[in-house]
């Protein structure tokens, strides 16, 4: 697996870096709002951002389909959600494009962007993506379906059924596992029998690769190759990105209760964002000044997004019964 990727331009990478920063800044802001009692519930992507954005950058938002999961806050930005839109979900406002405030934030959906509405349930998106992949194969327009999930989700029967179906029918699907080694409090050894998630692929006769999730270029290359296979009609791939969960599972959880303090401190020191910045600087694509001004710009965006989302209207109580059925 190469750690660089010649297909990427400087602009693309800087754009991705901006998205990563936006995700982090928005997330930090959400925690401030949470502590202030203004936001009820957050699932943080902290530690996953680089892998998520690297993966989406290898695909075609608006053309491809994306079945995201609740931790895909950074991926959602990469798919085209704006900071303001994500803040609208956080505040459960009527204008939340995913669900109009009906679902907890993290269940992303936007028809025009190809982001398929998810649920909070762990796993069901995996065979659903196989079905979407089948449809895309029939349509033969070169689109593929990307589906992401944690390593905990791989324990569900639906993981197996989805991979088996997609592999049999060579559906253009990328199964992207963000393995942070924890499913809430359950560590990988109690979750995933055997060597790891990537090794499950061979049983289905499909490629399975493991990448360092903090290496933007490695993740991007793995997804790009899987995308090429998918678009060439060679079927699905399984990618396991090793990432860190730098926050507790959610704002309802405190991982210090079940994780080792030394390990937590060691992981905190391995934040993938500084690593990405360094890689860009080494390439001469980013200077300290450019980074600083980018961060300022991102801060301003986030500020604006927060203000306008906070000021936005709540759903009308009378809309409760709408969209249960088409006619309602």
């Amino acid at each position, binding site marked *: 697996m190469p750690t660089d990727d010649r297909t990427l331009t400087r602009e693309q990478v800087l754009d991705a870096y901006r998205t990563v920063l936006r995700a982090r800044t928005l997330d930090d802001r959400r925690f401030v709002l949470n502590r202030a009692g203004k936001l009820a519930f957050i699932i943080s992507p902290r530690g996953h951002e680089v892998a998520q954005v690297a993966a989406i950058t290898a695909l075609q938002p608006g053309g491809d389909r994306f079945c995201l999961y609740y931790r895909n806050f950074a991926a959602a930005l990469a798919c085209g959600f704006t900071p303001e839109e994500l803040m609208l979900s956080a505040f459960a406002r009527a204008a939340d494009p995913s669900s109009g405030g009906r679902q907890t934030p993290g269940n992303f959906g936007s028809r025009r962007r190809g982001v398929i509405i998810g649920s909070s*349930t762990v796993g*069901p998106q995996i065979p659903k993506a196989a079905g979407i992949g089948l449809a895309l194969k029939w349509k033969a327009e070169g689109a593929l379906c990307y589906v992401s999930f944690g390593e905990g989700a791989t324990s569900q029967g639906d993981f197996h059924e989805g991979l088996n179906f997609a592999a049999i029918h060579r559906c253009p699907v990328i199964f992207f596992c963000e393995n942070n080694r924890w499913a809430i409090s359950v560590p990988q050894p109690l979750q995933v029998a055997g060597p790891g998630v990537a090794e499950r692929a061979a049983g289905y006769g499909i490629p399975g690769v493991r990448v360092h999730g903090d290496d933007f270029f490695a993740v991007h290359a793995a997804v790009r190759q899987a995308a090429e296979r998918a678009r060439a009609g060679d079927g699905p791939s399984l990618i396991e990105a090793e990432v860190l969960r730098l926050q507790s599972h959610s704002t309802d959880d405190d991982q210090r209760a079940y994780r080792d303090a030394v390990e937590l401190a060691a992981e905190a020191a391995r934040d993938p964002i500084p690593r990405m910045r360094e890689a860009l600087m080494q390439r001469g694509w980013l200077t300290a000044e450019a980074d600083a001004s980018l961060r300022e710009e991102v801060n301003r965006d986030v500020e604006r997004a927060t203000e306008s989302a906070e000021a936005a209207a709540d759903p009308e109580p009378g809309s409760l019964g709408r969209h249960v*059925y088409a006619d309602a």
Partner: protein
Amino acid sequence: MRMPERNLVQAVRDALYEEMERDDRVCILGEDVGRKGGVFKATEGLQQRFGPQRVLDTPLAESSIAAVAQGLALEGFLAVAEMQFADYSFPAFNQIVNEIAKVRYRSNGDFACPLVIRAPTGGGVRGALYHSQSPEAFYCHVPGLKVVLPSTPADAKGLLKAAIRDPDPVIFLEPKKLYRAERQEVGDGEAAVLPMGVASLVRPGTDLTAVTYGYMRAVTVQAASRLSADGIEVEIIDLRTLRPWDVESCIRSIEKTGRVAVVYEANRTGGFGAEVAAELAERCFASLDAPVSRIASPDVPAMPFSPPLEHAFMLNPDKVADGLRRVARY
């Protein structure tokens, strides 16, 4: 011009055939639906006609069958997924209840999930505990789903065509005991389509209303003839669609008869008949001369294989007639 005579399973097949001819987004998936044409022959010949893409044999995995159907729906196809038996829809329960039923609601109307899940339901064919269950109550409790359970060839055809055209997910349960029971003239094309949510008046009567559906329709008709011999005329309403169900037609009938029994094949406790009975008891309170009665199968897991036990389990015209008489004589 005489219309062709069809039994219920042929009518199902005809509906699939016609809808696939009409709209090339319609496709079929499930276990053994292809070359074999389904274990009950409901998809016979369709793969030969429409090819292995539009009539797809899936792996033996109901959760993925429902999930794939949903994926197809989200991409604009109209999937008709078969669960080989309604008893085997349970591995797909999460996909149906948490995913399919809630797509439209949870996306605030941005996405829809029009698809049909067909499954043979009910007992009476020596299928024993795992090929005889009547699980309609589970699906009727789920906002976002529609549930159809027809009892005649023409209703099966007309409602399956409607279900395929419906913008929302439909659970379509087919009483397997009736698959080859009787033939009936069945129309085709647009004229055959029936509206969902409209009950049918099976038999007019003055003394007592029986609200029923599925295989129990035929049993209730036989029971009603016995009561007729005693001068008691039963009005029989076949709901056909369970969610939404046609409460107004039932109320109109009860306002006339003053008495009602709900006859259903599922286990009594918590069956869909409880919903019907509760609603009618409330809405018809002032018209009722007798309590709303439920005539249903006993609360044992399902129909056993042994014929004497099967007989003991299953409602038949005698048992239903007894139940109806009790209501009439209250």
